[in-house]
């Protein structure tokens, strides 16, 4: 599809290897973490820009690793969806790494967490990129395991009793999820002699093996995405880690397993989806949304509110399955629902990461994240509170944010499909998000208590990082036509309607 094979290969090689090289370098040198991270960002972003240009110009493409075509080898698949997730990840990682230089910088002596944070963060990035580009279910398994082990390590990086418990709880869910996924992959290979997603699409049918495999893969990935009832691990894990780690864990990590679910249900096994299964997934999502929101309302710590909000927000990602899968897949509204979910995943990644980074800065300033202590914090941290408010707009789904575009697309699809229940749930989700995010915001803008200790100053440069992310989430809404068209590139059965 491209005139020369060199630029696409170079772009993919940079995206796939730069974070891994960075991680290995950081593992050796120890105290150069921030500098290596900067170099990694530059190299990876160069690759991503090349990739975006290629995809926008010449369309989606695949690259057979080692020149071995499927089913023998592994195919890398670069389409609009992959590039969208990769670009968003790079933006979020860039902001996180920029802000992490202070808490995880090293002095004269190498420190434990300052050492391990950098290779872990870069490995997390490398794992995400590997997942987003992979077109092979077993290769995805290896990527997912890399991601999981790194994420568990990041949860436990504080080394306190509660965070270790959270890491262990997370690990137990994640291990079970991996095994289920692996079981499904094994059954699919046994039946069809390949794990390449494109080849599977033509081979997977409705045999018992395929159904058990699909069930296992879905359950496994749902556990990793913290879909209700597998959600219990998420809030303590995401809220217990240091802010930069939380931002990665909440904003990016669950998106990987959701992304594989999307690939699986819409590309590898589109024909297997029965209405009842898709309804169940959507229903669990609705349940997660309500449950997570209600618990978020009851939290008194900022990071816990944000973490429970993730349970809720991940919940309505799953509305995509009843709206765009199965019988709906051939319908005109499917593209809108699918794109809406992708928009939601991307804007949530930016907004949620921004919020956790804000929470981290607030903790830096006042020493804790208990709500009452946040009174009047806007005076000390105006940019941070502004970023938080912008991110909140996205999470509530108010215009003109990316979250609004997502909700608009999904609601339109929901009415078109004659399933208004999902639209109702989306409205409810927005209201609940407004409710649980109102409290911290209201307190931040309130008059500070007379006797409250003065917050510590936080540099403007560092406050800029979450602001950039929150602004990006808003921009995604304002400029939604471009990204909307872009993520459709290479989508099987891509349709044009949805955004008019």
């Amino acid at each position, binding site marked *: 599809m491209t005139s*020369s*094979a*060199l630029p*696409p*290969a*170079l772009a993919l*090689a940079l995206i*796939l*290897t730069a974070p*891994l*090289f960075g*991680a*290995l370098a950081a*593992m*050796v040198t*120890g105290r150069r973490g921030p500098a290596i991270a900067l170099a990694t960002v530059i190299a990876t972003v160069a690759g991503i820009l090349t990739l975006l240009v290629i995809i926008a110009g010449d369309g989606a493409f695949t*690259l*057979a*690793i*080692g*020149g*071995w075509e499927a*089913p*023998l*080898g*592994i195919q890398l698949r670069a389409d609009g969806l992959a590039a969208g997730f990769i670009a968003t990840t790079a933006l979020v990682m860039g902001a996180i790494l920029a802000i992490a230089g202070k808490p995880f910088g090293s002095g004269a002596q*190498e*420190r*434990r*967490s300052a*050492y*391990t944070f950098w*290779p*872990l963060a870069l*490995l997390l990035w*490398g794992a995400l990129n*590997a997942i987003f580009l992979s077109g092979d279910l*077993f*290769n995805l398994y*290896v*990527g997912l*395991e*890399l991601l999981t*082990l*790194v994420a*568990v*390590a990041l949860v*436990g990086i504080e*080394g306190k009793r509660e965070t*270790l418990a959270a890491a262990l709880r997370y690990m137990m869910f994640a291990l079970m999820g991996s095994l289920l996924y692996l079981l499904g992959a094994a*059954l699919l290979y*046994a*039946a*069809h*002699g*390949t794990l390449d997603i494109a080849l599977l699409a033509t081979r997977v049918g409705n045999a*018992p*093996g395929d*159904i*058990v495999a699909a069930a296992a893969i879905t359950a496994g990935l749902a556990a990793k995405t913290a879909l209700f009832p597998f959600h219990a691990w998420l809030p303590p894990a995401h809220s217990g880690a240091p802010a930069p780690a939380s931002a990665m864990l909440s904003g990016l990590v669950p998106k990987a397993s959701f992304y594989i679910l999307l690939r699986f249900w819409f590309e590898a096994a589109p024909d297997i989806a029965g209405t009842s299964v898709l309804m169940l997934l959507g229903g669990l999502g609705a349940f997660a949304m309500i449950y997570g929101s209600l618990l978020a309302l009851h939290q008194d710590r900022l990071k816990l509110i944000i973490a429970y909000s993730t349970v809720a927000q991940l919940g309505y990602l799953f509305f995509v399955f009843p709206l765009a899968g199965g019988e709906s897949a051939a319908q005109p509204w499917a593209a809108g629902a699918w794109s809406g979910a992708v928009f939601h995943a991307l804007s949530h990644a930016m907004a949620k990461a921004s919020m956790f980074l804000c929470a981290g800065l607030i903790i830096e300033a006042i020493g804790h994240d208990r709500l009452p202590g946040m009174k009047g914090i806007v005076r000390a941290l105006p940019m941070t509170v502004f970023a938080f408010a912008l991110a909140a707009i996205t999470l509530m789904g108010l215009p003109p944010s990316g979250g609004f575009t997502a909700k608009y697309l999904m609601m339109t699809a929901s009415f078109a499909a004659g399933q208004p229940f999902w639209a109702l749930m989306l409205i409810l989700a927005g209201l609940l998000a407004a409710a649980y995010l109102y409290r911290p915001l209201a307190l931040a803008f309130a008059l500070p208590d007379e006797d409250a200790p003065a917050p510590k100053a936080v540099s403007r440069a560092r406050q800029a990082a979450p602001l950039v992310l929150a602004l990006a989430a808003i921009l995604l809404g304002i400029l939604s036509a471009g990204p909307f068209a872009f993520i459709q590139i290479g989508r099987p059965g891509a349709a044009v309607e949805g955004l008019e």
Partner: protein
Amino acid sequence: MIASLFDLTLCLLILAAAGAAVFGRAAFMAVVFFIVYGILIAIAWLRLGAIDVALAEAAIGAGLTGVLLLAALARITRRIDAPEPSTGPDRTTLATALASLVIASAIAFAFLTLPEPQGLQERVAENLADAGAENPVTAVLLNFRGWDTLLESIVLLAALLGIWTLARDEAWGGRAGPRHVTRPGGVLAQFGRVLPPIGLLVGIYLVWAGSKQPGGAFQGGTVLAAVWIVTIMAGLMQAPRVADRALRAALVIGPVIFLALAVAGVVAGAFLVFPPVHAGWLILAVEAVLTLSIAVTLAMLVFGPPEEEEKP
């Protein structure tokens, strides 16, 4: 007929060992049963025509995992002796048993109704000449699906980083794990002297032979790691400091060279290619450095995070 008898007996033993590992009352007993189970599973792999997997299982499943479990158990039980919560056969365990039975039956049903096998034996055989390894499994691991293997070697490092993260801050930079003491000249110390030369030989042989017959970087690396572990447990050597540059270089050298090779493919407009002309020695070279990194990483996984406070 006799073959079936053997298979049936082996399956029953495997199930018995697994059942005891799951149901056994004492944790130590469960761990011992798990070690036994690993040995039996390795034999099962031989019956399934998978000698490479049997090697990996014998080295990892029966060997390293057992050591990890025993060491962890010793350190946990030293700290806790409180009776753990009962899990008698109440309603939840009954429901769990039922659910497990249903799931296992569903999987068995799915297995029994699998369509005609369409494996990749032929396709692998057709391309073996260009793959640089005569052993088809090695060809798949290093070449056809080399990206999996590259990521997997990094998974090991991720686990190690995770383990190092669990060190106490004061101990950071110090020697990995506790310091092992033994009586000089005792049985253990003697054994620790005799075993390593043999193990070194076997490990290197496995890597070298891996391109032609069963074996390879992971199996050989595991054996080498085991040798190092024995030497340290026998008190003949001390584990390296986690801050040691040489150690860290050894940990990453394999993945780094593999990654570099992957990037070099860009020149040909591809990713991770072994040019058929050079594939033979390239694969051997990659395997050699991978073995070193894998061996060091596996051993460090067993040693654990640094524990003693670093003396300035």
